[in-house]
Each structure stands twice: as structure tokens, then as C-alpha cells.
């Protein structure tokens, strides 16, 4: 398994601003994932972040809105840009460890856009 931390745990942001979410893992991992969980909904994959390469985005998510950095094997950031109330969600990062196909999740970042 892996221990994953996220910062901030929650934030309230104004429309039009941006929020950067940090994800830190206690061990080196190849694959990191970012998910969105809208209120009362399931999890939707935003993108997959491999160290040293561009993130791979899912249909409906674009880099201009959700830029991702992956500078090393233990850290990643997700920025949610030009915020609107529709971006109010929980954002979770997850990692795939050496136990392939198993993903472990961080505690999430609860974003409220006013």
C-alpha cells in the first residue's frame, strides 16, 4: 500500500480564480491519477500522470482547464483553472503501486466555488 496526503483538504474559492492541489506519496510510484467526485456522484477520472511525460486526459477534460504537473515519482499537482460553481467537487489523487492494477487514494480536496 501507500500513504497519500493531499493539500489543501478543503478550500473555498471565488469564481474565475484557480486552485492548485498537491498530492504527496510516501513511496515512489509510476502512475498517479486524478479523479473528480461531484456532489452525490461517483468518481470520474480526469487524467493519468506519469513522471517525465505529459498527462493523459480523459474525454471531457482538457489541459487548459486542468493542468497537471508530475515533477518526480512522489509528487503531483492538479490545478483547476478559471473556476466556476460547476467545479465544486471533491478532487482525489490516487496511485498505482507495484501491485499493478491496485489503486490507493488520498483523502481528497473539497473545493467549493462561490
Amino acid at each position, binding site marked *: 500500500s501507500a500513504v497519500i496526503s493531499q493539500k489543501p483538504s478543503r478550500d473555498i474559492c471565488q469564481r474565475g480564480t484557480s486552485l492548485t492541489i498537491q498530492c504527496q506519496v510516501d513511496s515512489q510510484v509510476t502512475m498517479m491519477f486524478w479523479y473528480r467526485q461531484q456532489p452525490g456522484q*461517483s468518481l470520474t477520472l480526469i487524467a493519468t500522470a506519469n513522471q517525465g511525460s505529459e498527462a493523459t486526459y480523459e474525454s471531457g477534460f482538457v489541459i487548459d482547464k486542468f493542468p497537471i504537473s508530475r515533477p518526480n515519482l512522489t509528487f503531483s499537482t492538479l490545478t483547476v483553472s478559471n473556476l466556476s460553481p460547476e467545479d465544486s467537487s471533491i478532487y482525489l489523487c490516487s496511485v*498505482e503501486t507495484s501491485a499493478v*492494477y491496485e*489503486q490507493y487514494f488520498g483523502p481528497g480536496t473539497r473545493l467549493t466555488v462561490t
Partner: protein
Amino acid sequence: AQSVTQPDIHITVSEGASLELRCNYSYGATPYLFWYVQSPGQGLQLLLKYFSGDTLVQGIKGFEAEFKRSQSSFNLRKPSVHWSDAAEYFCAATRKGILTGGGNKLTFGTGTQLKVEL
């Protein structure tokens, strides 16, 4: 298209009663299957997984799940529920096989909210 269905949005059980949460999948090939639990304000915790072999898998916290290929199901069970089991439960699946640059994408069901009555 690949999908995971959890037919029950909410389930209420009495403490000490048995529990079964339903999960059905639709995949072109045999998927890898998972159950996660999300407690309020927490991230997702992996309860158990099925890759192959014995169709009855044991997980943490006394949970088990049974893979039934003929029914495309992977139902989660617990013989005796504790009040601390109240949470949201997610079934998830990924496709077995080729690793891609996009990683192994988990497809989640919509979740089942479990309430435990004392």
C-alpha cells in the same frame, strides 16, 4: 462500453444483521474487480479485489465478495454489520490485460450509501 452498476443507492441494515451490496459489470473481457469504502470526509479505502482464481475473496474489516461470471456480478457481503461500517461503498473494475500509457483506468459504480441502525 465498459460499465459498473450498483443498483442500490441507499441500504439500511440493523447492527448485527447481514449485509449484501450488489455490483454488476459489463466488460468485453474478464475484468479485475474491486470494492472500496469511503467514510465521511475520507478518501477511498480498498476493501478487497478479485483478479482470478477462487471466486470468493476475503477482504479487510470482515468483508468478502463473490465473483459470479454467469451473472456478471461481484457482490460484497458481511455476516454481521457494525455501526462503524456506515459509509459509502463503491464497486470498481478495470480491464485485464494491456498496460497503456494511460494507466489502468478504474471504472466506478455510482456507489451505495450504507446506513446502520443501532
